[in-house]
């Protein structure tokens, strides 16, 4: 289980061969970590046959409930796959979670202040903390947003912050996702099914609940209604049934008891957004939009897109509708801005960051670029605005041809890339094909910014199902686990 796979080169002073990934489940070759002991003993008592049966039940349940996700490739239309779910939960002790929670709240608060600042006074740019050039070269910095005041000055109402655990056991922030982060419905589905199929696992633990996420979200959406929270007509705006996250859009709309709409169901009249109903036009106050900025408003963003609603940005500017997450938030999850988030925490909050970033090289910095180009084999190179593991070079697993291609891309467009030393993601025990195997995992907690900032206890633990792989994204063969945060 602690074999050679998964050991990566980094530029740490320690001999690379000795850098073993942190194992979440096992303390050493024989013993589980203390908080996993009750679970481990239970699993051993269950035995192979019972485990195999439960694993099958889980798969069947996922299929019956229709918990799928769509994967798109260039050659074919979306393939619906059953959500891959591992029956061994990931457990986070109370004290560890307390640190994560406060670190996440701090980070999101700073990111929000950053967004407010760069779309208004731009003090952080004038004070030279972040290069204005970097921001203005950012694909997701939208000049149309400058000067607009979103309700309660909140931009990233929903954040999915990706966290990894280093080989020394420290949690690090890997990435911020503030545009249309997804995965929440799977987090809930995982918990619901874990409870239903493996209730006995829960008997030894007091696990904090996550199923209330939709009601937390609903409250946050009500909070930003221009007509006040008691008069809030809320809708979820989806690109439609061919979108890979469509299942989640319908799930959230249903759980919150709000209408699911597409762009063509809405129309703007005199700066107010309306739904086209059989009883005529009905005013809309809050739009939880899962359509990207560039497709959101064909009038404002010059697109031919049929997914959006012409005039919606003007309605938002006039304060007649709330858009969640606020357009323009993407500049804060630009990977080239990510290295500055600790600076934002210091600048806006006057605090030291509770959670650290992964060390990151900016390709726009000549010294960084030079270093990375000579060490590509040990680096993870990422395109600054991609997600889902696309546009990424995994150095140690790459061919010389691919590395050469990335080197050229970096030279051609340095602003579009960052690089990080390969982080040996922590590993966990997974039940795969009848065996307990170790795989790399990460964590995506969800942060809701409403009247307060709330972090849902746990989140989505993603598993890189391919042996030795560090790529956890579902679209690239990743799976998931139920995530337990223990109550006091």
């Amino acid at each position, binding site marked *: 289980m602690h074999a050679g796979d998964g050991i990566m080169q980094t530029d740490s002073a320690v001999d690379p061969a000795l850098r073993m990934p942190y194992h979440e489940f096992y303390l050493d070759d024989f013993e589980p970590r203390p908080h996993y002991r009750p679970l481990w003993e239970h699993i051993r008592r269950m035995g192979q046959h019972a485990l195999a049966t439960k694993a099958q039940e889980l798969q069947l349940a996922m299929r019956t409930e229709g918990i799928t996700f769509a994967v798109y490739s260039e050659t074919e239309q979306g393939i619906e796959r059953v959500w891959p779910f591992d029956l061994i939960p990931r457990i986070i002790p109370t004290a560890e979670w307390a640190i994560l929670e406060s670190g996440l709240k701090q980070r999101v608060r700073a990111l929000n202040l950053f967004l407010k600042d760069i779309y208004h006074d731009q003090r952080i740019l004038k004070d030279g903390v972040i290069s204005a050039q970097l921001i203005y070269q950012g694909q997701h910095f939208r000049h149309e947003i400058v000067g607009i005041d979103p309700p309660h000055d909140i931009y990233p109402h929903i954040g999915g912050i990706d966290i990894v655990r280093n080989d020394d056991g420290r949690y690090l922030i890997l990435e911020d996702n503030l545009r249309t982060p997804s995965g929440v419905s799977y987090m809930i589905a995982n918990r619901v099914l874990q409870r239903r199929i493996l209730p006995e696992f829960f008997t030894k633990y007091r696990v904090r609940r996550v199923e209330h996420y939709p009601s937390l979200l609903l409250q946050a959406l009500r909070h930003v209604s221009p007509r006040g929270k008691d*008069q809030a*007509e809320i809708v979820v705006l989806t690109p439609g*049934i061919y979108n890979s996250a469509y299942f989640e859009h*319908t799930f959230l709309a*249903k759980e919150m008891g709000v*209408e*699911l*709409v*597409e762009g*063509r*169901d809405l*129309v703007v*009249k005199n700066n*107010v957004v*309306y*739904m*086209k*109903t*059989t*009883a*005529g*036009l*009905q*005013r809309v106050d809050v739009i939880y939009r899962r359509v990207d900025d560039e497709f959101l408003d064909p009038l404002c963003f010059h697109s031919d897109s049929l997914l959006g609603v012409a005039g919606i940005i003007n309605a938002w500017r006039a304060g007649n509708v709330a858009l969640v997450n606020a357009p323009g938030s993407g500049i804060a999850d630009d990977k080239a801005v990510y290295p500055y988030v600790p600076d934002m925490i210091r600048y806006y909050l006057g605090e030291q960051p509770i959670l650290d970033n992964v060390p990151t090289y900016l390709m726009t910095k000549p010294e960084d670029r030079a270093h990375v180009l000579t060490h590509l084999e040990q680096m993870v190179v990422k395109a600054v605005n991609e997600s889902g593991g696309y546009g990424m070079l995994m150095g140690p697993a790459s061919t010389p041809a691919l590395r050469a291609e990335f080197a050229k891309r970096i030279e051609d467009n340095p602003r579009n890339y960052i690089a990080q030393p390969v982080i040996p993601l922590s590993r966990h025990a997974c039940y795969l094909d009848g065996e307990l195997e170790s795989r790399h995992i990460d964590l995506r907690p969800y942060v809701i910014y409403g009247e307060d900032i709330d972090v849902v206890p746990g989140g989505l633990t993603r598993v890189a199902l391919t042996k030795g792989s560090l790529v956890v994204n579902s679209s690239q063969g990743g799976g998931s686990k139920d995530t337990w945060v223990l109550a006091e």
Partner: protein
Amino acid sequence: MLSRIAESLYWMSRYLERADNTARLMEINLLYLVEAEEHLSEAVLWRPLLSISGSEAAFAQYYNAAEITAQNVIQFMTKGPANPNAIHPSLRLARENARVVRDRISKEMWQGMNELWWMVDTRLKSSLPPERAAAFYASVRNEVARFHGLTSSTMMRGEAYGFYQLGTFVERADMTARILDVKYHILLPDAAMVGSPLDYYQWAALLKSLSGFEAYRRKYHTGMRPIDVAQHAIFEGDFPRSLQFAVDRIQRALAMIGTAASDSPSHEAVRSLLAHLADHSADTVLREGFHEFLQEFLEYMAAFNAALQVDYFAAHLGAEPCAM
């Protein structure tokens, strides 16, 4: 509810009804083929079917100089693709619309729709010769009937159900009027022929294509008289496939939807339809012109469809915002 969803519910049931009616017509015509006299050519037997669905031109284009044969018509009316009103494309569209409204219909309905689609799609991958076609059409009718049964027993009554009903009965009224117009004209091309000896089998076939033969026979003991057939197929409010029944149900569906005022275009249009029926009887229809009566009926139906756009499906184009 969202206009788009309402319109999808409406078309889901309209396409289902279209497939059902087409299957019914095809089945009866095939069975009649068995009973028919030898001097009647295939073209004579099958052309009326093409007229009913208004696809004579499309058929001629697709098949070039080929004749009207049972096999060609079966292909054309079942599989498409040259005929968008064929059974296969109609069911595909019914299912596409069902997918859009999936969270408005019960799980049983969605599953039922899927099963119906898979059955038809799979079966149509192999050939459908005349001797096996009748059984296929019977299975389509059965599956649709099953779906209606599921709907009736699991779907919440309310606005959504109202649009579902609307689609079924608009399509049924439309199709019945066309069947009557074409078939009657063939059987009684001249008003002067009223009262002359008629072919029992042909009239029976007409009634059977409306699934009204047994009920008719139970009610009318004096044999096949045109006036009785007209009465039964048009004005009989208790006969589920009559025009009267369909328009009554349309009115009920509007009431169930309940969002438009009583002086709105759709309510006005349905009142016109009811008045058109109330102003006539089987007797007046035969004397003044069967074809004229039905054409007028179809015009009122077209007006009704336009009114549906104004009141429900594109209400936003003219409406003022409603007060919250």
